[in-house]
Each structure stands twice: as C-alpha cells, then as structure tokens.
C-alpha cells in the first residue's frame, strides 16, 4: 500500500510540473505580448470575431459528439466524416453546377438554402447508414469494438468520397453578395462571419427547443437517462438512437455549409482536424451536455484564434501560426488528463461511464 501511494505521488508530481510549465508559458507569453503590444486594437477585434465564427462551427460539430455520447456513451469517431460528406458532396454536385448555370449569382438565397439542405440531408443519410451498419450490431460488445468500427467507418467514408468526387481541393463558388464587410460598433466585420454567427445562433435556439420541448427531443433525453426504462415507457430505443445520430449529423451538415462559406474550399480530408477539435470542444464543455458543447466550441475557437498571437509570438517562436493546431491538440490532451468532466459541464455520473 505504501508502495502504491509513493507511486501515485511521483506521477502526481510529474503532472503538477506539466501543469505549472504550461501555465508559465501562457503567463510569460501573455505578459510579454501585453508589454510589447505588437497589434492594434483593430487586430485583436479581428482575432476575436474570427474566433467566434470558427468557434460557432466547432460548437455545431461538437453537438453531434455530445448527443451521441450522451445516449450511447461512445465516441463517434466518424462524426468528422458526417461533417465532410455533406458539404463535400453538395459542393461538387449542387453548388458548382448552380454556379455554372449562373443561378447562384442571380438568386443567392434560394441556392444557398438548397445547398445547405442537400448538405444536411447527405450528412444525415451517411450518419444513419453508419449507425445501422457499424454501430448498432455492436451495441452490447466491449467498448473497444465500436471504437474500432468507428475508425474503420471514418476511413471508409473519406476514401469513398475521394473516389466519387476526386482528391483535389474543390473551391466553393464565390457569392458576390456575401463578400465585403459590414460596420459593427466601431469596426468592420466580414459579412460571411456575420452570417455564420447568426445561423449558429438560430440553429442552437432551434435545437434547444427541439430537445427540451418536443416529443422526439424528450425521447432522446429519456434514452440518454436510461435506455431500459425508456423502452418500458414505450419509447422505440433504436429509432431514438437513429434520431440522435440524425440530429447530430444535421448540425454537422449546417457546420459544413458555414465552413464552405468562410474558407471557400472543400476537400475529402477536411473532416479530420475539425472533427478532433470539435471533440475537444465537447469535452471542454463536459461531454454529454449540449449547452456545454456550445460554450466549449466558442471557447476553443477563441483560444485558438487568439493563442498564437497572444502567447506564442512573443516567446520568439518562429512561424508561430504553424502551431495553431498544436494549441488545440494540447488543449485536448490537457483537458482529458486534468479535467475529463469538462470546465463548465456537469460531472458524468458514475453509472453512465
């Protein structure tokens, strides 16, 4: 027993050193930046608005992780592919033909709605297929098995869509009406960022209504609470789980649409990194909690957008923007190690885990 305690002690010590080192890096970097002040106020505002726009996308994707985790206690590794499939397919098959026909430029609103609808529907179908084929048969298997099929499904969809639409980066057609900026307070904001933030807000409010006040939404919560009791209450558990996947995938489809509007390009591999980052956001907010996912997404987006300039640059790191992804991944590792229950979220109940 004493042996064991001593053992835990030095690992704890190691963890404390890691924690202290990271806090030191952030503090020293931030203080130096504040003293040097290399950016104008305008720059910082741009960083913040970009962070919020990016964070909105993370939030939307993170909801898919959190919903599925809440219901099945499983990390849906293929969720990034749901995000990719919708917008990748509808860019190639809908947006580009529309742009070629000139309809996109003349009627931007119906075309964008059509593209978004296709993106959502394709994401939903991919998620339902994946759930039915790769997850449902393994619902009672050891935890490792659905995780492995999830990895398999993820690779399958990536390379399937690569085969269908090609491996090159496909540019999303420009929409003239969405270019340029609008004044906001005393600064200028890109129109596409305004659209992203607005759409995210609307979708989140809609989702909240769906989950809290409609019958299917209540069924999802009941199944998340306890599958057996929910089944006894007359809820079709299988159908509710499918619905959960579909809801998450619909959010991913919207996020895909917003991604294309902000970054103007799609690619078969585009789901991987946003997928992991959104998972980080979901964990940050406390996995299983929907408001948590939204807050976690925003937080991660801001942190990632501000981080490199705030505390990496002044430490004299060359080409500090290359390390943007490292910030997100480090955050992921740190949160999972130190606060797996999330920063703002509820503590996971023992029986669920």
């Amino acid at each position: 027993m004493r042996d064991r305690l001593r053992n835990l002690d030095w690992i704890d010590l190691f963890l404390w050193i890691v924690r202290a080192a990271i806090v030191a890096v952030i503090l020293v970097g931030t203080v130096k930046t504040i003293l040097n002040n290399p950016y104008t106020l305008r720059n910082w505002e741009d960083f913040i608005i970009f962070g919020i726009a990016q964070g909105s996308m993370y939030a939307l994707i993170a909801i898919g992780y959190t919903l599925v985790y809440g219901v099945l206690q499983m990390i849906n590794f293929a969720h990034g592919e749901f995000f990719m499939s919708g917008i990748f397919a509808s860019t190639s098959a809908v947006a580009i033909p529309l742009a070629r026909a000139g309809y996109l430029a003349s009627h931007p609103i119906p075309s964008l709605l059509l593209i978004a609808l296709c993106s959502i529907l394709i994401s939903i179908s991919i998620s339902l297929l994946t759930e039915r084929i790769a997850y449902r048969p393994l619902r009672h298997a050891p935890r490792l098995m659905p995780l492995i099929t999830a990895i398999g499904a993820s690779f399958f969809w990536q390379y399937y869509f690569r085969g269908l639409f090609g491996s090159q980066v496909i540019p999303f057609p420009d929409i003239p009406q969405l270019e340029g900026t609008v004044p906001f307070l005393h600064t200028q904001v890109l129109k596409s960022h305004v659209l992203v933030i607005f759409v995210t807000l609307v979708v989140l409010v809609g989702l909240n209504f769906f989950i809290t006040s409609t019958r299917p939404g209540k069924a999802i919560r009941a199944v998340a609470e306890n599958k057996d009791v929910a089944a006894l209450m007359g809820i079709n558990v299988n159908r509710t789980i499918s619905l959960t996947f579909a809801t998450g995938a619909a959010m991913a489809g919207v996020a895909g649409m917003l991604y294309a509007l902000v970054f103007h390009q799609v690619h078969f591999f585009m789901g991987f990194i946003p997928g992991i980052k959104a998972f980080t956001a979901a964990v940050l907010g406390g996995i299983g909690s929907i408001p948590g996912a939204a807050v976690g997404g925003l937080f991660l987006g801001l942190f990632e957008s501000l981080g490199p300039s705030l505390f990496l640059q002044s430490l004299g790191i060359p080409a500090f923007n290359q390390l943007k992804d490292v910030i997100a991944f480090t955050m992921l590792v740190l949160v999972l190690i130190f606060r797996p229950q999330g920063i703002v979220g509820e503590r996971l109940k023992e029986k669920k885990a």
Partner: protein
Amino acid sequence: MSFFKDLDLRKLGMQLLVASIITLSVSAIGMVELFGGRFVITGLFTMAQILFLGPTAFFAYRAAQEAPAGKKWLGLLKALLLGVGVGIVMFTFVWLAQNFDVRSVFINISPRLINILSFEHAGGATTLFLALVGSALAGGALALVPDKLRKALLLGASITLLVGLLSEILAERLRSLFSSQLSSAIIASKALQVIPATVLFVLVSAISYLRQSGRIGTGKIGPDLKPSQAKIVRTALISLLLLVLPMLLGSYLTEVTNNIGLFFLMGLGLNIVVGLAGLLDLGYVAFFAIGAYTMAALTSTGHLGVAGISFWVALPICVAVAALAGFILGMPVLRMRGDYLAIVTLGFGEIIRILALSDLMKPYIGGAQGILNIPKPTVGDLALIRPEQMYYVILIGVAIAMFMSTRVRDSQIGRRWMAMREDEDVAEAMGINLVNTKLLAFTIGAGFSGLAGAIFASKLGSIFPHSFNLLISINVLSLIIVGGLGSIPGTLVGAIILVGLPELLREFAEFRWLAYGVLLVTMMLSRPEGFIPSETIKRELHAGDEAAEQAG
C-alpha cells in the same frame, strides 16, 4: 400466398438494394476502371469484371441459400430476380452515363469505365445486363451444390484468382529461377494462361474436396517423431527457409518482405499495448518517428547529424529513447478510460507530427526537408546496401521482438495485462497496480516501435515528417485486428495481407485505405477475434455463444 412468403420479397428487395449500391459504388469510385487492364486469365476475364459481377453473384448466393428447405428451386428464382434487378440498375447507369454529362460531378465515371462495363463493344449495356443475370444465376446455383464441393470450388477459384493477380511477379521469379520458356508457357502478358489456370483450379479444388472427404492428406507425412523432436525439426526447417529466403525471392520481393518485417515489428509492439493490455493507442506512429529521428540524428553524416556514431551503437539508444518517450507520454494519460485514451494518444501523435514539420524544430530535425545522409548499417567493411542484406538486420530485429513478446506474454506480467484488459476493477482488487502495469505495456510497445523506426531510417537513408502520419498508426492497428488481437502469428498474417498485398497489387494501393475501412468494420462485425485468433480472446468473445448453446 405461401409462395410469396417463401420468396421473402422484403428481404430480397434489401439484398437487391445492397448489391446495386455496391456495384454502382465500385464503378463510380473508380475501382472498376483501375482494374480494367488487369487480366486474371489472359484474354478471358479481368479483375474489373470480378469487381462488378462479384457482388451480384454473392448476394444471389445469399438469397438462394435462404430459400426454405424442400423448395430449393425457389432459390434459383430469387437469384434470377436479383440478377434482373441489378441488371436493370446497371443498364440504366450505363445509359445515363452515355447520354448525360455526369463526369463533371463524378470524376471517375469516364468513357473508359463505360467501355469496361459494356465489355468493350457498342450496345454492350445489354451484354452487361445478361452478364449480371448470368452471374446471379451462377451464384444461385452455387447454393444448390453440396457443402463440401462448394468449399472446394470456392477455394480453387480464390487460389486461381490470387495466382492470376500476382502473376507478374511470379513470371519474373519463374524466369530467374527456372527458364523463360516455362514462365511464358504459364503466364503471358501479366496473367495466367487458360490451360495452367484450369489445371490449377481443378487441382486445388480436387485436393480440397478429397481432403474434406478424408480420403487423402490427413495422415502424417514423413517418419514418426515425438512431439518435442517434431518441434525441433519444424523450427530448424523454418529457420533454414528464412535464411535463404532472399535468394528465392529476388530484390523486389525481398524489399516487400522487409516492409512486411518492419510493420510486423511495430505490430508486435502494438499487440502488447492493444491486444494484451487493452489500451487503444492511436498515436503509435509517434514512437516510430522518435526511433527514426533518433537514429537519423545520431548517425547522419549530413549537417543535422550530432554524433556520427555507427548504426549498431545507435540502435539500442534509439530503442531506449523511444521507450523513455513511451514512459513519459504514458504517465499522464494512462489513468483515463479506454476511449479517452484513444483520442489523447491520437492528439499526441498529431502534436509530434506538427512539431516535426514546424519551423520551431527545424534547426534540429530539418522541418519538411527532413534529415538526409543516414548511413546504412555496416558489418566489418561491408555496408548493407541491398535489400537482401537489410533483410537479415530486420530478421534479427523481428526474431528478438518475437522472442521477447512470447516470453512476456506467457510471464506473470502478460497475465496481469490480460487480467487488466478483461476488467480493470477486478484486476485492481486482485492486487495489480494498474498504472505500473499499463506503463510497462506502453513502454515496451514504444520500444518495439522505436526499433522499427530506427531500422526504417537506416534502410531509407533519409527521413521526412510526412512518412510519420496517422495512417501508419491505423495501418498497424488494422493489421493486428485482422490477424487477431493478442495473437503473434496473427500479427504476421495481418502484416502479410495488409502490407504485402497492397505492394504487390500496385493498383490496389489507391484504394488501400478504403479497403482497410471496410476490413475493420467487417472484421469487427463478423470475426472480431481475427483470422488467427489467440485462444483467450476467442474464448472470451464466444463465451456468450457457448452459454446460449448450453441453455439450448
């Protein structure tokens, strides 16, 4: 109405849908076109035809098998319906592709694809329809054949297919080992000739059939030996074969064998981490990279080399550094639950890859340009430059790793790992220190991977961060899952299938990751214990079946 009930139209419709989707998919994602030029039997049929006719035959067979006993003819009717259904779908597909511009969206639906699908002649859509119906009927007929004969026929067909696909390499070997006449008599223009193919098919099928009926081959060959003596003889034979293997295989195949060996080495390490200890590590490539970069930095004669020591001195250092990295990275992460561990290790792998690419580390490890001028290992004055020479280095590494992992698996530590894999709480209650035990698995696994990385760096002579992406981790994970988690021979078989085959079938490399994805899902669904399962895992996974059987 019992006729329709027996026909089970709902299920048949489902099978029709799945068969159509698969056939459409293999065409639309470019697989058919890619294999269009790959004849299996010269002038007779290509791999592409197997790809677009095979799914129909398979689902027709499945549908026919489900026909109720006593009404076996119904099976043929079901197969016919299915064939007609898929035929109509594919006919429409070809018609659409010929009359509309679909290529601007689906880049792989090319005129060449349509040519292949319509058997290279005008009006071939009808031929395609007939071929699909024909293969569905063949599949249905297969369901009527007695079990033993069916197994024999399928085995014969798959062996013939495999030999046909690998015939290019086979021809080269036959030429250099025997004579070019023999080679061209059997293999012409990269495919089997008709007569040798028929002979091979009949021979394999006949032997398999007779073996199943117990008429030949079940008896012992050679003199009677005690089990212990037999084991010595077997080991001696295998060692001898392994020693002369490069001479039999030639340069190219030896190079492939070397790659298999390196992945096998990594597989052995990951097998300890995932297979025995049950810790899903998706950042395994990080240790491979650490081993490779350590070797590069220690031995390189370029400007990034720091020590300039020899391969043999650097090798143990590389293993130690990788193991230490495993220990340090393992410490914080090993307390978390299984699925979180997978994501964290994935994050670690990506962090290391991005750092290796960044300007921050460029002065030390070269950024995207990597480290060049890594010398080959030397023995005395002889530098081991050719793959046939590197083979022995890898063989020694594999032998050491196999010996170690067998010993560790059967030791008390191995049992602790397996106990932990089954149930952490129970294992802890039994007095197992979870963190230490996990750390040990992580460290040993990392060491194996570092060894593979070090040899890899020296074999290639230069290393770049792009060689160390997530796909390597997924590749190693796939091969131990396909072979059988926790099983050492399984890992070898997995490495041969997943590393060897894609290198031999170069067209296949394009769809390697797609196939891995399918393989991971289907293995988990139908054979989670792998092709060559370890005894314990098999028992565990099928415990439920036995209990159900006993319960009646």
